[in-house]
Each structure stands twice: as C-alpha cells, then as structure tokens.
C-alpha cells in the first residue's frame, strides 16, 4: 500500500466509526442531533479522502466530480426544505436516488472492468445492479402514489401474480445465466430491463395505507444495493454503511408488519384495500353526531384527553390546530397526551414528526403500548383522521380482514370524539364499529377547521 492508500483507508475507518456512533445516538432525542453531526462529519471525511484517490485522472476528472457534487447539492438542499407533510414522498425519492447511484456505479464498473472481474465480484455486481434498478423504479412509483400523482389504491388486474412471477423468474434466470456466461452482455442489460419493470410491478398493487412497510422495504433494498457495491469495489466503508441501512430498513419493515399483524408476503401480494370493500356493511346502527359546543364542554372539564392522529391529520394539515387546542386545555389543567400507532400515516414515525414540528414536546407523544393502559381512565379520546388503527373489529371480530392487528383502544375511554371529513368509509374501505358505539360522538368536517373552532369554543367555556 502507498501512503495515499493508508490515508484513504484511515478516512474510511473514521467514517465507519462515526456512522455507527451517529446511529447509536438516535436512541434518544436529546443526543440525536449531535450524533448525526458526527455522522455527517464522517461522510465529509470519507468524501475528502476519496478526492485524493490515485485513480482520479487529472483536472478533467475533477471537473466531472465537481459537476456532480454541485448539481447534487443544488437538488439536495431544496429537497431538505420540503414541508414535513411531504416527508413520505421525499423519503421515497431519496430511496430512488440512492438505488440509482448504486446501480449506475455497477453498470459503469461493468463497462470498465467487466472482463477482468472475478466471479465473486460479478455476482455482487449483478446483485447490486438488479436490486438498485428495481428499487429505483419501485421507489419512484411509491413517491408518485404518495404525492397523489397516481391513484393510491392498489392497481390490480387478472393474472397479475403470474405476470409478476414471470418477470421475477426471467430476471433471476437472466442473472444466473449471465453469471455462467459473463461475456453475454445482452443478458446483463436485459436483466436490468427486467429489474426496472419488476420494481414497477412490485409496487403498483400495493395500497397507500401499506406504504410504511413498502417504504421500509425499499429502504432496506437500497441499503443492500450499496453494500453489494462495497463487495464489488472491495470497500469496507461501503459494506458497513450499506449493511446498516439495509438492516435498519429490514427491522422497520418487520416492526410495521407486526403493527398490522400481517406477513410481509401478505403486504406485498395481498393487494389490501381492494378486495375487502364488499365485505363491509355487516355492522349497523346509527352514528351519533355531536355539536362543537358539546365537545368543547366535554374537553374543558376533562381530567385527561388523548389525541389519536392518523393520516387524515396530515392531509388536513391539522397538526398546529391540534397543538393549539392542546395548549388551551393544558392551561386549564387538563392532562393532554398523544397516542401514536406505529403505522399511523404513510411512513414509520410520520405522526411524531408532524406533531414535533407543531411544537408538541416529545414527552407528550406516547407509543401504542404506553397509551393503551391509560385509556380506561381517559375522559375524552379525540380521533383525528385515523380509522383502521382505532377499529375495535381488529380486536373483537376474528373474521375481520384486519383481525389481530394491535389497535389504540379508544373505545375503552369514557367517551370518544371522532373528527371525520364525511360519513364515508376509511381508506381500507372497512366499516368501523367504533363509529356506532354509544360512547362515540362524530364531529364531521375538515379536521383543521373543527379543531380551530373547538379551540375557540373551549376559550368561551
């Protein structure tokens, strides 16, 4: 090794250590910011070290590098300024970029040194490019769905599973046969084509409500694709960072599946939200509509109020209005808590970020398992644009499509107020017996307007 190489490897080692320390600091909100600063410093060290890489070819090489870095920053910085409600689609897009980068490195490496790579590297390279390509298109579709540029409901057609299986097997077949005959470049490029199509085919049948799982899974694929790049380039920091990303996504997707009591294959191939629409209507009864003033009085004289937000809060941009109402209630001595279901929203932790943005202190944000024991002693539970995550059918009705899914048991509270846009069914098309219970009062209208009006009414009580 030359001196440059030692310098390079040292920066990579420092980066790896700082990445791990950065992620470790995320175990508590108080240490998290400093930790991520360390991770960013690690990244800067690794990039700086790489700029002295001996393979970089003269000033022209630097021109290309700087062009890429400049354009990347010019796009990346505005992408960090998006409103918090747009976090899910922004994250999906960044999965797409990460995967694209890994795939392109693979293709470029193959075009440069494909003939001299050993079978191990060719295997890792194929894996990297395949996973990168399918994550790229899959993430773009997910982003389009989240941005509502595309229908959010599952897109399904007859024989879809067979078509998807066909694409998948063709892709794997091309991968294997190309491994056996690396000279056949057309196989390599056809495999990329199949992977790009497969990414689309994988995500279009999945409904928006299942996006937390899909996002985590794509996160994991993007990470693994980076890790494979590390194998191709024999670069340890790439392996470490990619594996950390891959495992993080994997753990999150398992947590999300558990929070819905569904298996990964059910989420990926179940087309949830399309098939079950006709099974609804079994529960009957009337929904009790309540007036704004009634609710205001109830809230004002409560000891404890729990807000349970769902994706509806994000679409109505109601997080600030919730916080204002919560403030008023706290001033009156009401204990105000927020119960957050793991799959509320469109990505893991979505609701927490929105409420934190609206100045809710993190100590008021409770996880599902923490808030459930408190609900029986809660006077009013306010459901804001959430549906399935508070559906008692999941607990009581073994025939329900969401049977066994853990829920926030708002129906155990002394009274429940549901803020809802209209009388229609929720996203999954499931009937929610909570709305027909005697403890439940329905307050129809836009969540933000309702909450603002409630705050005014509470002030008058």
């Amino acid at each position, binding site marked *: 090794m030359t001196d440059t190489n030692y310098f390079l490897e040292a920066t990579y080692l420092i*980066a790896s250590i700082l990445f791990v320390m*950065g*992620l470790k600091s*995320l*175990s508590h909100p108080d240490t998290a*910011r400093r930790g991520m600063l360390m991770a*960013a410093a690690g*990244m800067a060290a*690794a990039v700086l070290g790489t700029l002295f*890489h001996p*393979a970089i070819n003269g000033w*022209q*090489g630097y021109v290309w590098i700087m062009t*890429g870095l400049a*354009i*990347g920053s010019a*796009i*990346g*910085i505005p992408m*960090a300024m998006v409103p918090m409600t747009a976090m899910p689609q*922004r994250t999906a897009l*960044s999965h797409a*970029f*990460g995967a694209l*980068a890994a795939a*392109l*490195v693979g293709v*470029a*490496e193959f*075009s*440069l040194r494909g003939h*001299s790579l050993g079978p*191990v*590297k060719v*295997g*890792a390279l194929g894996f990297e490019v395949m996973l990168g390509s399918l994550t790229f298109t899959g993430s773009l579709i997910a982003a389009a769905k989240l941005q509502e540029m595309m229908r959010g409901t599952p897109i399904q057609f007859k024989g879809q599973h067979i078509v998807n299986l066909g694409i998948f097997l063709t892709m794997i077949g091309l991968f294997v046969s190309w491994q056996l005959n690396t000279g056949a470049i057309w196989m390599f490029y056809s495999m990329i084509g199949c992977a790009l199509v497969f990414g689309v085919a994988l995500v279009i049948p999945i409904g928006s409500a299942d996006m937390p799982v899909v996002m*985590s899974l794509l*996160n994991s694929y993007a990470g*693994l694709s980076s*890790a494979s*790049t590390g194998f191709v380039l*024999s670069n340890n*920091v*790439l*392996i470490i*960072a990619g*594996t950390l*990303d*891959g*495992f993080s996504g994997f753990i999150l997707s398992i947590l999300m599946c558990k929070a819905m009591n569904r298996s990964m294959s059910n989420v990926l191939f179940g087309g949830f939200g399309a098939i079950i629409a006709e099974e609804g209507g079994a529960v009957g009864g009337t929904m009790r509509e309540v007036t704004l003033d009634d609710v205001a009085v109830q809230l004002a004289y409560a000891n404890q109020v729990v807000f349970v937000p769902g994706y509806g809060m994000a679409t109505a941009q109601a997080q600030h209005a919730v916080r204002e109402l919560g403030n008023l209630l706290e001033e009156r001595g009401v204990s105000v808590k927020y119960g*957050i279901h793991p799959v509320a929203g469109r*990505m893991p*932790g979505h609701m*927490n*970020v929105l409420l*934190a*943005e609206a100045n809710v*202190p993190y*100590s008021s944000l409770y*996880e599902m398992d923490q808030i459930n024991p408190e609900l029986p002693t809660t006077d009013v539970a306010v459901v804001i644009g959430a549906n399935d995550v508070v559906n008692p059918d999941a607990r009581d009705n073994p025939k329900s499509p969401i049977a066994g899914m853990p829920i926030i048991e708002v129906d155990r509270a002394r009274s429940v107020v549901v803020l809802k846009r209209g009388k229609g069914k929720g996203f999954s098309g499931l009937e929610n017996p909570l709305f027909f219970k005697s403890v439940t009062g329905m307050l129809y209208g836009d969540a933000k307007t309702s909450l603002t009006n409630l705050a005014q009414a509470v002030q008058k009580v």
Partner: protein
Amino acid sequence: MNYLLFTALVFVVGTDAENAGHIPPAVLIASLYVFALAAFLGYQVISRVPPLLHTPLMSATNAISGISLIGSIVIAGEHANRLSTILGTVAVTSAMINVTGGFLITDRMLKMFRKKENIKAEEKK
C-alpha cells in the same frame, strides 16, 4: 423470508471461493466478516431506536448509504471513457442529493423534537 434468501444469496455468491479469480480469498473473507459484523451491529444499534424517531432514522440511514458517493467519485474521476464518466457523474449527483438532503432534513427534524421546558422557554422569547 424473501429478504433472508436474498441475504443468503450474497453469501452463496460470496463463498464461491474455489474460483474466486481476481479477488484474493483473504480480502473476500475479510469482506464477509465486515458484512456479518456490520449486520449484527446494525441490528443491535437500530433496534434501540424508539418509534418516536423512526422517520429521522430512515432519513439518517438514507444519508449514510449515500456513501456510494465515494464509489461514484472514483468512477467519474477516472474519466476512462464517455459512458462510464457520464454514468459516474450521474451517480455522483444522485448520491450527493442523498448526502446533502438527507443530513440536512434529518437535522431539521431532530431540531423539532424538544423537551417541554425548551419549548416553553422559546415561546416566552
């Protein structure tokens, strides 16, 4: 399960050491150790992240996996032929989007998670 199989595939591809060709077995084995240990470490570290911070976790790991930037920098900088240079430069661009955007937005988010006392102190100002 699919995921485990994919992971296993990496191993199978990796352990085909018999005709490892241009990659010295020692390097390959070291790489596999790194992979296995990073996986274990990742599991340990990440399962301690509370659900409260799952969105920042996702954007943070995203930013970190932008480390493929260093691979792309070398390919773009090598300036070997037109195809690889263009692919490399596009890869530098997309990885850089994740690095800058990812770290900035993670910080922006983490800044919002505050204690009650801190929020009250700020509101007084």
